[in-house]
Each structure stands twice: as C-alpha cells, then as structure tokens.
C-alpha cells in the first residue's frame, strides 16, 4: 500500500510540475540549445529552413566562429569591459547597504528621503541612460557646466568622458550604479526588518560600539540578503546592454562595448547570426560559471 501511494504522489508531483516544466523548456531550455546550435553554423538569417550544422555543411569549419572570436580584438575588449563592470558595479551594493543602514536607523524621519533615493529604481534603464547621457555630454552637458562654474575646467576645456577611449566605461558604470544602489538599498532594508531583535538587544546590553554592531552582528545576519544582492549585481553587470546601447552604442569605436551589446550588433547589424550566437554562448558560460561558483561558496559557508 505504502509503495503505491508513494508512486501516486510521484505521478501527481510530475503532473503538477508539467505546466511549468513545459514553459521552462519552451522559453529557457530550447532557446539555449538552439543558440548553441546556431553558434556552430554560419547562418545569415535569411535561409528558409534551419541552417545546416557545420558537420553537414562542407563550407564551414565547426569551430570557425569560436576561432574568429578568439582572434577578435573587440571580443576581448568587451570581455574586459564586462569584468570591469563586474568589479565596479558591485561597489553600488556597498552604497545600497550604507543607505539601508542609514535609513533603517532613522526610518520614520527619513521615509521621505528614502523614497527619493528609491526613485531611480522605478525608471526604465532607457530613461536613466538618456538622462545620464545628457549630464555627461561635452559642450552642452550639466557636468561640464558645473565643473566650469567650479573652475575645475577652464572656459575652453571640455568634459569628454563618453568620447574617451579609456574612460567611457567609467561613465556608464556610474550611471548604472545610480538605480542599482537604490535596488540594493531596498533589498537590504527588507533584510534589516527581519533581523532578530533579541540578538541586537543582547549586543546592546553587552555594550558594543555602533561599528562593532554593524561589522559583527548586523552584516553577518544580513547574509541572505547579501546572497541575493551579489547574484543580482553579478547578473546585472554581465547582461548589461541597454545603458551601453543608449549612452555610447559601445563606442567610441567599440572601446566601451560589452558582450551582450556586441552579440546584438554582430547578429542584427552585421547579420552574422552564427557569430552572434557564439558570443551569446560565451556570455552564458561565463555567467553560469560565476554564479555556480558563488552559490557553492555560500552554501559551504552555511555548512550545508
């Protein structure tokens, strides 16, 4: 009897899972597999039927897209920029934590200011990119205007951050960090409201300083929120596309390009569907490795 009921349970479980598994397969697994398949073809996007795989097509060598990628300077620039994003974009998580701690302490007084800080998160990244693009513009931009008022720049100087081959990415990350810090703040605020009060009270009775409280009690207890913040930040940095497309279009001359945008440009502007797919596969692999590594590490920390 027990065995058959367990079997029935199993069947029921699969039945209940079926709809979401079907959608998952359709919208997640199939596109991933098809993209991997495309990366081994040199499809131009026009053929009637599915493009022939490299093994069936004598005109293509299987690894061609990946060999081309290896020899493509722009690919390495984009990969490097994604790494820069990963490192510096994460700083906005610290800003978010700082804001959350600040506003949590004075939560009632500061709810108005809290909502001000929260605001950029509501904007679409397209809006953020457009507005920051205007701020950072040479000749007409707000930042140049202010720097001139403050006599940091001379009257004939220009603030050409987004035209600079070395520094354009910095301007993009600053713009992206603005809404992202707000996002991290919200995540940490939620985490803070779930802290165990008795632990905090015990610490207060033991007479810890404010800094010790934050460093040794609050931050470790915020661990679940931190896991989410880190993953969200990592994914945000890796898949960044819209801000770059709007503020610099990857320019000047690809110096601020990132993998997601370069994939789009190669696929839909240069019509190299296979090559674009190969870039997507690399981006996918990088994300997968980083996120799995991070999740492993956090689980080890939990002793699980």
């Amino acid at each position, binding site marked *: 009897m027990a065995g058959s009921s367990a079997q029935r349970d199993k069947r029921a479980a699969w039945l209940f899972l079926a709809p979401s598994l079907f959608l998952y397969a359709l919208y997640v697994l199939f596109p991933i597999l098809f993209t991997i398949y495309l990366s081994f073809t040199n499809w131009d996007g026009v053929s009637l039927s599915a493009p022939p795989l490299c093994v069936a097509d004598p005109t293509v060598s299987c690894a061609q897209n990946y060999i081309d990628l290896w020899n493509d300077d722009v690919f390495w620039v984009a990969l490097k920029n994604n790494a820069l994003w990963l490192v510096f974009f994460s700083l906005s998580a610290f800003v978010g934590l700082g804001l959350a701690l600040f506003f949590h302490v004075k939560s009632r007084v500061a709810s108005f200011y809290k909502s001000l800080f929260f605001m950029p998160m509501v904007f679409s990244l397209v809006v953020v990119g457009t507005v920051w693009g205007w701020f*950072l513009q*040479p000749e007409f931009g707000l930042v140049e205007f202010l720097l001139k008022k403050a006599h940091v720049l001379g009257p004939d100087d220009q603030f050409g951050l987004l035209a600079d081959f070395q520094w354009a990415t910095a301007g993009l990350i600053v713009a992206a960090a603005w809404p992202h810090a707000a996002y991290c703040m919200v995540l940490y605020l939620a985490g803070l409201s779930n802290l165990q009060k008795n632990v905090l009270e015990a610490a207060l009775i033991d007479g810890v300083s404010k800094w010790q409280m934050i460093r040794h009690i609050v931050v470790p207890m915020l661990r679940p929120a931190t896991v989410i913040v880190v993953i969200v930040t990592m994914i945000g940095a890796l898949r960044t596309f819209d801000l770059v497309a709007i503020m610099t279009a990857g*320019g*000047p*001359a690809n110096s601020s390009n990132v993998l997601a945008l370069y994939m789009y440009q190669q696929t839909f502007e*240069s019509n190299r569907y296979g090559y674009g797919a190969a870039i997507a596969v690399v981006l996918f692999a990088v994300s997968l490795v980083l996120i799995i590594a991070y999740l492993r590490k956090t689980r080890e920390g939990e002793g699980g």
Partner: protein
Amino acid sequence: MKSTLATRSCSFALLLSAFAPCAALAAGSLTINTNASDPSAKKAFDNVVEKFKAENKDITVAVNVIDHESYKVQIRTWLPNNPPDVASWFAGNRARFFVDKKLVEPIDDVWKPVEGEFSEGAKKASSFGGRRYLMPVNYYHWGFFYRKDLFEKAGITKAPETWSEFTDGIAKLQKSGIASPIAIGTKQAWPSAAWFDLLNMRVNGYEWHMKLLDGGERYTDAKVKKSMGLWSDLVKKGAFPKNAAALTWQEASALMWQGKAALYLMGNFITGEIPKEMQGKVDFFPFPTVDPKVPSSQVAPTDVYFIPAKAKNKENAKKFLSFLARADVQESFTQESGLLPPNTKAKVDASNPFRVKGQQVLAEAKGLSQFFDRDANEEVAKVGMDGFVEFMAYPDRLDAVLKKIEATRTRVHGKK
C-alpha cells in the same frame, strides 16, 4: 483610419509574429510592406496609396508600416517565407544580397516605358547582371551645409569649389575664432563614413570607390591612404570637434546653430533640423573637387520598391510600381517627404532652395553611390565605420585601422 479589416488583421499578424502568414487576401488585392515610418514619409506614402486606390478601384490595398530598424531585421524572415506583393528597400548592395538569393522579381517590363525618364545613376543602382529589379522612388543629396554669416565674417566670399579653397576656408574660419569649424557627431559611427565616401570618390574616382566597397580592392591600397591623408590633415589641424564621439548627429548640428562650428557634411535631411532663427543663414555647397581629372560623383541614398519573387499578386504589384515610376506621382510624393525624385521629368518646387540645388547636383553627377554602409557588406561597413571613428580620435593609428578593415574584407570577400 481608412484601413480595411484585411489591413488590420494582416498588420496584427505581423505584430504577433514575423512568421505569421499575412491573412490571405481576396483576388484583386495588393499588400505592401514599407519602412516609411517617419511622420512625413508615412504621410507622403499614405497619399500616394490613396491616389493609387482612386485610380484602381478594383484593387484592395493593404499597407503595413514597419519602423526602420525592425524592418531591416524582419525582412530576412518574411521575404523568403511570406512576402507581401510590394516591399520597400534600399538600392545598391543591400538589394544585391536578396537578388543573389533569387528573392526579387525582375521588372524589366515595368521599366521599359519609363527608361528615358531616369538618370544613368538611378538605373545603375536598380540593376544587377543586366536586369532591372528595383524601382527608385526617392533619393537625397549629401554635401556641406554651412552658415553663410560665419563664412562672411571669416572673409570667405564664395563657397569653396576645390580642395585648396576648402582648406583655405577652414584655416580662415579657425583664425576667425571658430576652433573646430567642421561639425560632426560620431556617437553613431555613420556620419564619419560620408567623409570617406566623398573623399575617396573625389581622389580615386567613382568606379574605383565602388570596386573597393564591393570587396574587389584592398583597404590598405596606397590609393585609400592618399584619400585618408587629406582627411588626416584636417583631423590633425583640429578642424573637427574634439569630443565628436560623444555627440549624435543632431547634437552636433546644434554646434553649428550655436556658432561653434560653421559647416557640416550631411544629408539633406538636416534641413528639417534648422531652427527658426537660422532660416536664411544656412546654405549648401557640394563636396569640393580634389582632382580636376576625376568626374564628379555624389552620395545619394535611394529608396526603392520591389516585387518579392514569391509575391502572390504580381500583376497588381507591377501596376503599383509603374504608378510609382510616374513623374507626376514622384513629384507629389517627394514634394511631401522633402526628398528628391529620381524621375528626371518630375519637377522640384522652387520654394525650397536646398532641394533645387540638390536636384541639380545629382543630375550633373556621373555616378551615384548609396552610402558606405549600403554599398559595402554589412560586416565590413561596421568595422570600417568604427575604424573611421578611431582614426578621427587617433589619426596616427591610420595604418592599424586600415589593416583592421582589410582583415574583415579578406574574411568576407576572400584574398585579392
């Protein structure tokens, strides 16, 4: 909205999915896909369609207007699978790609009665392998738009016609206090390519330029270096804005309205951006001659309509293309869109001096190119234009930039 149910269901199907078949329309129908999505272009095209309907009451016309960028991506899906009866596109190599794949219907019979009304340049741009495939409906000119008042203030009495007059003029403008007189914005890389197109055509001639863009010559050729050298001189003199790479072409035009720049190599569409207080202060001159032995040619991007090889109502489609070819239709069509009619019998209204000058410049041209990113293969064009932007920031990297473009050309077109 006068759209019929058929139109709506068809555009709805397009909205849902680029793969969805357009609703099968009754006999005596005509489906048109167009990228004429800007308000003025859309209105002009709507009026043309209304006129066609009035003349052909038995044909039900359905028009799908698709925005420019989506159109470029989607056409690859519906053209081989579920094409409309008539579709808009660009002349030159962008069309050759589809012609080579046998996706375009030849229309020599549509052309026959109007052969004599089109210029050689327009005919060349519509033909591949000796057959006509495309019907040009409008084009526009490129050249220098400039501030007359600033030129006068700098002591330039007439618009430059030769390269030495041009460089003298730049020097005079710089002396008059305009540090970077030539406006350009390369946040989108394409405005830089106009400089390459026109300089290379002026130095090496139309035929050689087109052969290069077709993939038949090397970008590392000494001839390319010669034309780039003239450009490099201007860059090194600081004639272009230092931070051009952070400006869009519209933002760069503001430099000219503010008097921070005095001239701008642009397409005629810039005249739609001229603010009220600048009206009458802006004029046009064509790109100056560099080598008097090289006959004049121009950049004139041409919009065309064609019949997909798998169209269902080819007779109606041909009727529509013959209609589009007519001088009176092109006259009213381009009058509204502000572009120029490739049919030379069509008149250009004298109230807009830019159009009159443009029509004259294009009529005198011995060759018309379509613009770098339409004449060259897309991959080469992308690498090329990014290369031009890099070169404008670091003119000393010229050789490295040309090598990069040449490497892509080799990969796409093979070794020469």
